């Protein structure tokens, strides 16, 4: 149980800057997620917290204690490495027991704990195997078990579930969350699975190329992105450049050159992000917010187009509607069976509900 405080962290490898002036305060017992595109510095940041890299600049503190130059073994963090880093000369049991042995726990206790955690990651029958004889996902679970079993102060998980199937992943998520809540372990989680990030996290930090764009709760991040990068990166969205036209009652009116039409947006903090005059503006509307109908729709922000692609994703169906040569709008509906899927080429009306549009500035720098 620790807070983790990164102040002005920069990390350079030769002339590559992997992390740039990062400031973060992760609270005690919080489940904190790093989200960001590949190569944006997530692993590097985790490694600085674990102590494998020293920041080129800046400080790492746990609970106000400067840890910047403390050796990794004195930090009591548990890490799942992106590449697993399982000990090839040990069996599954020995791998998982490693951290416990170091902590001088009695043999019987170790046996019990390892057995327990392996049951949790569904690997109890593999306890005596050499790790090289496991499948990818099995190896990943060993790595997870090894980090969980020591109940560390800080858990650092670098894409710990990326090679597991959805079912197992959900079970593992629940397990991690249970452990995390039970012992109040501060957890930092790196994932590329947005559903994972959004369902598990207390807070999320969204990174891009070494910089942190937004920190917030999942709903904040999803519903109130601060700029176009965050909006685009988290979930699907339809993003159109707009310019401000006027205020009208409780609404603001924006103009979208691509569709040559006015867009009405509720004038609330939820719908319009703060921006300055120099900023380029965009409107973002989530596919699931877009109303789509073959019949006529009432109200503002209604457009017509034709269905260009219907994509089936299981619980949902994505319908791509071509508005004109440049613009295709993506809409999402729940899967109500094959009979409800639209045919390609169908003329449809779509509507951007006024209260579900968000106007945001473009990413800076």
């Amino acid at each position, binding site marked *: 149980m620790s807070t983790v405080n990164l102040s002005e962290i920069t990390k350079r490898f030769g002339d590559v800057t992997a992390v740039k002036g990062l400031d973060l305060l992760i609270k005690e017992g919080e489940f904190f997620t790093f989200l960001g595109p590949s190569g944006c510095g997530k*692993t590097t940041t985790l490694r600085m917290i*674990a*102590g*494998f*890299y*020293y920041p080129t600049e800046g400080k790492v503190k746990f609970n106000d204690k400067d840890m910047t*130059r403390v*050796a*990794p*073994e004195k930090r*009591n*963090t*548990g*890490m799942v*490495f*992106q*590449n*697993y*880093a*399982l*000990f*090839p*000369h*040990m069996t599954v049991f020995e791998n998982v027991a*490693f*951290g416990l042995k*170091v*902590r001088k726990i009695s043999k019987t206790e170790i046996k019990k704990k390892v057995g327990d955690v392996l049951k949790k990651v569904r690997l109890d029958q593999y306890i005596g195997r*050499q*790790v*090289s004889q496991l499948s*990818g996902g099995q*190896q990943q679970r060993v790595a997870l078990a*090894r*980090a969980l079993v*020591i109940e560390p102060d800080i858990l650092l998980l670098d894409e710990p579930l990326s090679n597991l199937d959805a079912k197992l992943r959900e079970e593992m998520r629940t397990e991690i969350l249970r452990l995390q809540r039970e012992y109040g372990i501060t957890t930092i989680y790196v994932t590329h699975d947005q559903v994972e990030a959004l369902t598990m996290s207390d807070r999320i930090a969204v990174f891009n190329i070494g910089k942190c764009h937004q920190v917030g709760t999942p709903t904040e991040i999803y519903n109130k992105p601060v700029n176009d990068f965050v909006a685009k990166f988290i979930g699907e969205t339809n993003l159109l450049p707009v310019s401000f036209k006027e205020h009208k009652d409780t609404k603001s009116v924006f103009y979208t050159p691509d569709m040559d039409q006015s867009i009405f947006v509720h004038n609330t903090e939820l719908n319009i992000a703060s921006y300055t005059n120099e900023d380029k503006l965009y409107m973002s509307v989530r596919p699931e917010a877009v109303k789509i109908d073959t019949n006529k729709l009432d109200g503002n922000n209604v457009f017509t187009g034709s269905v260009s692609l219907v994509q089936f994703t299981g619980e949902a169906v994505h319908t791509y509607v071509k508005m004109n040569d440049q613009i295709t709008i993506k809409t999402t509906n729940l899967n109500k069976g094959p009979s409800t899927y639209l045919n390609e080429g169908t003329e449809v009306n779509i509507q951007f509900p006024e209260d579900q549009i968000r106007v945001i500035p473009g990413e800076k720098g």
Partner: protein
Amino acid sequence: MLNANKRKTIILLIPVVLVLAGYVLYPSIATLIESFKKNGLFSLANYQDFFGAKAAANFEALWNSVYISLLSVFFSALIGIPLAYVFNRYDFPGRQFFSNIAIMPIVLPSLVGVMAFMFLYGEAGLVPNAIKDLFNLSKVPFSIGGISGILVVHAYTMYPYFYMTTASALNNIDPSLEEAAYNLGSNKFKVFWKVTFPLLTPGLVAASLLVFMVSMASFSAPFLLAGGFRVLSLQIYFSKINGDLEMAATQSIILSAVSISFLLFMRWYQNRKDYRMASKGIGVHRSEVRNPILKWIMVTIGIIAVIILLLPHVTLLMLSLVPEGAWTWQTYPQAFSFENYSLLFDNTTIWEPVRNSLIMTCLACAGVFIFGIITSYALVKRSFIGKNLLDILVMIPWALPATVVGMNLILAFNKPTPFSFGHILVGTFWILPLAYFVRFIPLVVRSTNAVLEQMDDSLEEAAQNLGAKWFYTFRRVVIPIIMPGVLSGTLLAFVQAIGEFPTSVLLYTLSNRPISIEIMNQLRMFNMGQAAAYGMIQVGLIAIVMYIAYRFFGVKSENTL
């Protein structure tokens, strides 16, 4: 029907088996047969003698050999592993220089090398007497001799096996494994013992085998330092001197049997576990060290190590610079001059042995380089029946005392054979390069095995999947990755071959007399100074070659991680 894999294995094995059969098995069988002869008749008499009449002495010798060898392995490891670890894992000023110095001990020519030790640490040696004079002691505080002497010399001259194999194996370890261990809370010591050390197993097994076998067969050190002490290699020598060739053969067979048992034990030990670093992706980075105290501790260790390591060389240099008579009864040398060198260089044929040694060594090294890689690959990455047997064959030239190997070659090739393409090899130039080749196969195979054991199979699969033929894969993927191991083995072979004495003395001819023979002859004429000067030429030569190797291959092999 044979699948593609099996076919490849067979194609690969054909040259390996041919060479081993022709140049190792066939000559060794001569020794085996010899051991079963008594007065020209087949009998078990020699073995009855060994275990019966002469049992007391033989068993004493056997036991001494075994425990000295085990202790030599232990002490060599004790020096070699930490040194390799420090020099390869920490970045500190002078690291590169120190790590190059670290393998200097093998450069020391064996006979003059041991003499240098006597001059250094013997009862009349420089170091004990300097301490005595410095502190006004009545007696020298210590001196080497007997078993302690053997062990000191063994540890000093053999730790480079550990150093080299450990260094190349260390560079192949995925650093994230150690990081994971740190992360789980182990301290440096634990990480080393529980993760790094076990992962080095293939390398350590290789080094242990090499050291165990060399010390089993070691001759100069026990001979010079502990005259009356009974070890098997000396027993063989004395049997031979007394003309009892059959007994010598029997003793050689027993010695090889012990060495081979050790080999089998080590193989078993190693095969219990898996050392292929199959973790996902590639280890991304090198651990960083930024502790200034640690850094300077490292530098200090480095400097002290270098001084100790180079003292024998310095002594040799001193010996070569002392004119005749200036360092006989005197504790310290009285005068220095280049007399020995000028005497040497007056002789116009001085460079001939140097050239011979270089040519023959290069030939042999090229041979072991290629053959070693292929054999090691077959041994580690292919499965076939008779693997243990092949492994034993590979190690036999190392397990047998050098003289016996020489004798074997003589017996095998003093008549025309298919393996010598119908020629008599004894008495020709080619017999020596062949002897060096045979003797040093195990060095390359062992050190290559060590890194191959660590290589993830999926790399090869990836290359094949991309359409690369086996040979292309081998050349472009496998070899570059295992290069550090191969090179360290070849370098060891090179250094040893340049100074090889015991087989050379049996096989050299006028046209190919190597350096070591020249050194020996100077010694026999009591020209200690000129022998030392020749020794220095040898040291210099090896130093140059090592520098070149480092320049041209070292840089490349760094890239493998």
